[in-house]
């Protein structure tokens, strides 16, 4: 029987960046959000947000949907179902780091 792994191994490396962490935290609580609203919420520039969204899309966390409102392009972002599961796993790992007494939910 092997010793339980340290919870840090359960952390998702895609969420190590502060903007990506905040971005997924914001998306996890809503169905979807417009690019501009998310930029204002996180207080980052368009370029920083675009770059981090691209990283998260590549990692399978985020889905970006492009549409038009009149003639203006509009990008809407949402978390994928896999992204939501991984985000919850990441939070669970953080809880176990913060309080080592909390059992690993994945093993129960």
């Amino acid at each position, binding site marked *: 029987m092997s010793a339980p792994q*340290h919870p*840090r191994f359960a*952390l998702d490396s895609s*969420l*190590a*960046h*502060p*903007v990506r*962490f*905040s971005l997924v*935290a*914001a*998306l*996890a*609580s*809503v*169905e*979807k*959000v*417009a690019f501009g*609203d998310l930029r204002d*919420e*996180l*207080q*980052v*520039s368009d370029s*920083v947000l675009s770059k981090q969204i691209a990283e998260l899309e590549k990692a399978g966390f985020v889905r970006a949907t492009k549409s038009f409102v009149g003639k203006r392009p509009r990008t809407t972002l949402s978390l994928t179902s896999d992204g939501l599961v991984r985000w919850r796993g990441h*939070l669970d790992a*953080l*809880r176990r*780091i*913060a*309080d*080592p007494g909390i059992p690993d939910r994945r093993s129960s």
Partner: protein
Amino acid sequence: MDTHSDSLPTGDRGGDRPTPEEARRMLADAARIGHRTPEAVPSVLISFAILCATGTMATLGVHLAARMIPGSTFNAPLAVTLMAMAWVFVAIIVPFLFRRPLRRGLATRWLIYMGSWGVLWAASMLLGDSSAALVLAPLFLVLFMIAAATEAKRTRTAQAEEEAAQSAVVDGEAP
């Protein structure tokens, strides 16, 4: 504009292992951001209040119009129905004007609320001139109270999670 550090990973200052304090701080950040992003009182709930109030008034309106003006060339129940439909249209348009993100899960609950409202509305329009209207009219109020209570409970749960995460940070910082 950019308030985030672009070089340092969250909770990771020089290693790949956040300390318990950093983990608590990240959990508090996640709870705070998650609570802040959706609006506290969803604008769709205001729309739903208008829809339900319109439902009650339209049901009673059709009922009374059918009883009080019999045989008139002026079709009073139709006038009530058309005016009510105008309010229904306005109520459905309102959330699109605000464009605020919906709390996760609300899209599904919204379909359930609107489905229930649609069934009640159809029944009211079909049975508005009978005594069943007196039973159907208050059901819109009951439906709205159920929706409001459900959303209030969800909001309280989110607030409690945020407060728990914040207090964990404070406890961790206490000497």
